[in-house]
């Protein structure tokens, strides 16, 4: 098996980093409170997540010290080449944004204002890069000759939905456990509700993906599907993906829809559903990455 644990952990971490940024940006932008606490939280979380993922990726190379060969080429046809540049730019801009936020309070009002304008532009650029980043985690696998990965056009959809769901989940967990962030409870509640809808999208995509695999003309897709539904990966698929990543958190989030998060039971349910989403996201990546190579 050429791709093992470092690869699926990396796809999970990079997806979560991009998904959290995507969710935080949209939540604040639609609410008319651009680039406030939530986006900062997502950026500060995303940088270490992406960097840990990249370290895993480099260590997994046959020749880790040659990793810089990736930066000697820009190839739009090779998803790995595109992913390299997307990740580099996204992390680089995130670091610049973090530095700007850190220094803006120590500057004169005029300089701070122009710095904030620059950060505003960078935030938009990184939204586009975050979309490309989470799409790339699926495209990387889909552009191959493994039936489970390449047999449909829905693997990028599935990974995008999961990336956003796990991204929202890590925002929620950090917001409710790290009170210093001062994310309003109302925002956390809304995030949990948004996650329920994202999970619904993910569930629909997963069903479509399974049907498409079963009907695909590509040789080996039927066997690949059976590997998940009744084969050696059936337990992690049904328990880890269907229950843990989708049905259980969806149920918890719908049950607590609109309820006050101050209540201990609601707080516990929101944390539990987010933890399920994050763990389930890892199991989804593992099942797909391993399943594609059996």
């Amino acid at each position, binding site marked *: 098996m*050429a*791709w093992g644990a470092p690869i699926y952990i990396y796809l999970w971490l990079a997806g979560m980093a991009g998904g959290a940024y*995507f*969710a935080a940006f*949209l*939540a*604040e932008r*639609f*609410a*008319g409170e651009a680039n406030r606490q939530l986006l900062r939280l997502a950026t500060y979380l995303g940088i270490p997540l992406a960097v840990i993922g990249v370290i895993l990726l480099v260590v997994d*190379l*046959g*020749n880790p010290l*040659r*990793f810089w*060969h*990736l930066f*000697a*080429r820009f*190839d739009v*046809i*090779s*998803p*790995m*080449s595109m992913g*390299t540049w997307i990740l580099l730019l996204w992390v680089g801009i995130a670091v610049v944004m973090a530095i700007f936020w850190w220094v803006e309070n120590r500057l004169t009002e005029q300089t701070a204002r122009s710095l904030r304008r620059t950060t505003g532009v960078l935030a938009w650029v990184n939204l586009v890069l975050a*979309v*490309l980043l*989470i*799409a*790339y985690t*699926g*495209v990387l*696998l*889909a*552009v*191959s*000759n493994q039936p489970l*990965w*390449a047999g449909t*056009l*829905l*693997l*990028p*959809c599935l990974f*995008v*939905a999961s990336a*956003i769901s796990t991204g929202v989940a890590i925002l929620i967990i950090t917001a409710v456990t790290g009170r210093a962030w001062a994310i309003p409870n109302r925002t956390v509640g*809304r995030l949990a*509700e*948004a*996650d329920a*809808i*994202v999970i619904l*999208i993910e569930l629909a*995509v997963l069903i479509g993906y399974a049907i498409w695999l079963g009907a695909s*003309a*590509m*040789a080996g897709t039927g066997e690949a599907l059976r590997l998940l539904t009744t084969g050696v990966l059936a337990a992690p698929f049904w328990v880890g993906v269907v229950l843990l990543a989708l049905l259980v958190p969806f149920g918890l989030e719908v049950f607590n829809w609109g309820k006050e998060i101050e209540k201990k039971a609601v707080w516990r349910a929101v944390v539990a559903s987010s933890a399920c989403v994050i763990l389930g996201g890892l199991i989804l990546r593992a099942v797909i990455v391993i399943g*594609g190579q059996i």
Partner: protein
Amino acid sequence: MPKARLIDTSKCMACRGCQVACKQWNELPAVETKQEGTYENPPELSGSTWIRVEFRERPGEWLFRAHTCMHCTDASCEKVCPTGAISHQGEAVIIDQKWCIGCGYCVQACPFNVPHKDEITGTARKCRFCIDRITNGQKPACATTCPSGAIQFSERADLIAAAREKVQTLVADGHPNANLYGVDEMGGLHTMYILLDKPSAVGLPEAPQLATSTVLAQWLSGVITAGVVAVIPFWLLFRRKKRLEAERESKVGGTR
């Protein structure tokens, strides 16, 4: 005129001379194996085994096929390689061992399961079409050593013409499914096979696909999901209008 390798599986007697010649010419180490109830050995193609005879037993007959690089015209491995380490040199698809980082993408992209990561070198390795021999007017080591003439190396057009005649003979001789594999697949293969039965009977894909043929569609699939579909829940729950309405409601509630 492009050259090619033609493997006539009807002539192969599974002596595995090609395996030995390949290892010798390319100075590839032997691997320690154990008996696993098959005549095949070593158990799989690997970073240090670049050609390997597969054995398939059917009632009354054996199907043998030497599994090795097809040297595709449109090569998936070359297309997905993120560093440009894989390239065509004439007909041959070569992995530059000094530039390969060992990411394993070519392993996932090849429709014929040919490149493999080598534990010792840390790079992806596979048949080099004996580039050092063929550019000096010689045949690849496997074709040179093959005692039954099953592996031939010559002008591609001549091989195709001869192979088509041979297929007709085989069909007339009781092999109705005999066929020539590799004329058009992947833009034309530079390793072609005369097969006694349909390709899937010897583990070859009936319709191999270029891994990158769907690259644009796959990107669109992901980007549309994120950029359009996944925006909706956040728009529904966070848009300012909704927030203002909620605030107004709570104010009205407060005055009561």
